């Protein structure tokens, strides 16, 4: 079923870079500084999705909003390759590791670090600065936020437009 695309890219400096080869559907709003890599899928199936500033969404990521309430994602989050997000809200400065899964209704606060292949159970609320890691999904509290990706984002802004077409 082809869903109508309604993508708003809010103006700002630095501009958001949404690559044409990503799969977007539904009502999505990108704030300034967001970068969406090719083959990422953002589906606002049942409700709209709003991204804060400077979010980095890498390849094969699936962000889907299955509820009718808007999914509001805070600034400076890093969605690594292959992660699947069905959360109901996401705070700021989080890192979602490779192939991690956030189930429906989960609430992610600020500064969390979800490791590769980890799972956040449905309707679970993660306190700030939680770290999920390892095979057994161990949880621990960290004393500081995950390292900033600002320099990576600056570099990407120079490199991506050279090889990919951007949605204006």
């Amino acid at each position: 079923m082809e869903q109508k695309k309604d993508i708003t890219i809010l103006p700002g400096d630095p501009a958001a870079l949404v690559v044409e080869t990503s799969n977007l559907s539904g009502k999505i709003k990108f704030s300034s500084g967001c970068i969406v890599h090719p083959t990422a899928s953002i589906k606002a199936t049942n409700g709209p999705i709003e991204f804060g500033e400077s979010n980095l969404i890498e390849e094969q990521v699936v962000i889907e909003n299955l509820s009718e309430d808007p999914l509001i994602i805070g600034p400076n989050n890093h969605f690594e390759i292959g992660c699947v997000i069905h959360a109901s809200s996401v705070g700021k400065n989080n890192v979602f590791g490779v192939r991690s899964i956030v189930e429906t209704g989960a609430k992610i606060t600020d500064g969390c670090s979800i490791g590769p292949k980890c799972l956040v159970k449905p309707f679970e609320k993660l306190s700030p600065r939680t770290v999920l890691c390892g095979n057994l999904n161990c949880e621990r509290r960290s004393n500081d936020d995950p390292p900033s990706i600002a320099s990576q984002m600056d570099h990407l802004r120079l490199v991506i437009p050279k090889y990919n077409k951007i949605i204006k």
Partner: protein
Amino acid sequence: MDLPLIVYSPEEYIETSTGNKVYKKASIYGSQNIVLSGKCVLQKDCILRGDLAPIRMGKFGIIGENSVIRPSFKNFINKGPQGSFIHVKIGDHVFIGKSCIIMAGQISSYCHIGDGAILGQSCVLKECCEVQAEAVIAPDSVFPPFSLIGGNPARVIGSTAPCTADMMIEATQEYYENFVPKTSARAALM
């Protein structure tokens, strides 16, 4: 058991002059920055992000279906937060399985990466290593030659056979030769 004969339809794959067999619709970005030394096989739906940094692959390299090779970012702390995407070097006779995510900085020759493995940012695998299926390698880790790596987070759980180099040469050459188009004589004999 012997490696099976894999037949592909010639419309889907392109064979270059150096003998590389590449899936036409594979998501290869920045192909100017990607060097395949010859006789490599890039299978269906693989993703190579050459736009971020150069990727160099040795001869007889095999990249399985749905795998992602993506250069990772490294910060230099000399003058404030700066950094760049690091050059990915993959050696000769490397077999990368299906659905792997490779963000490594260097994979030396004769390595075997199992299906579904995840190699973290800037990690370094030395020669003749074997990564088990579904292993998750932490960022910035270094593994010495002949290590058998597995688990999540990945650790050295044993050592590979001493004759791994010869076995990988044989396996990758055989895999390459068994990867034939439908129109070839060998496929007709099947």
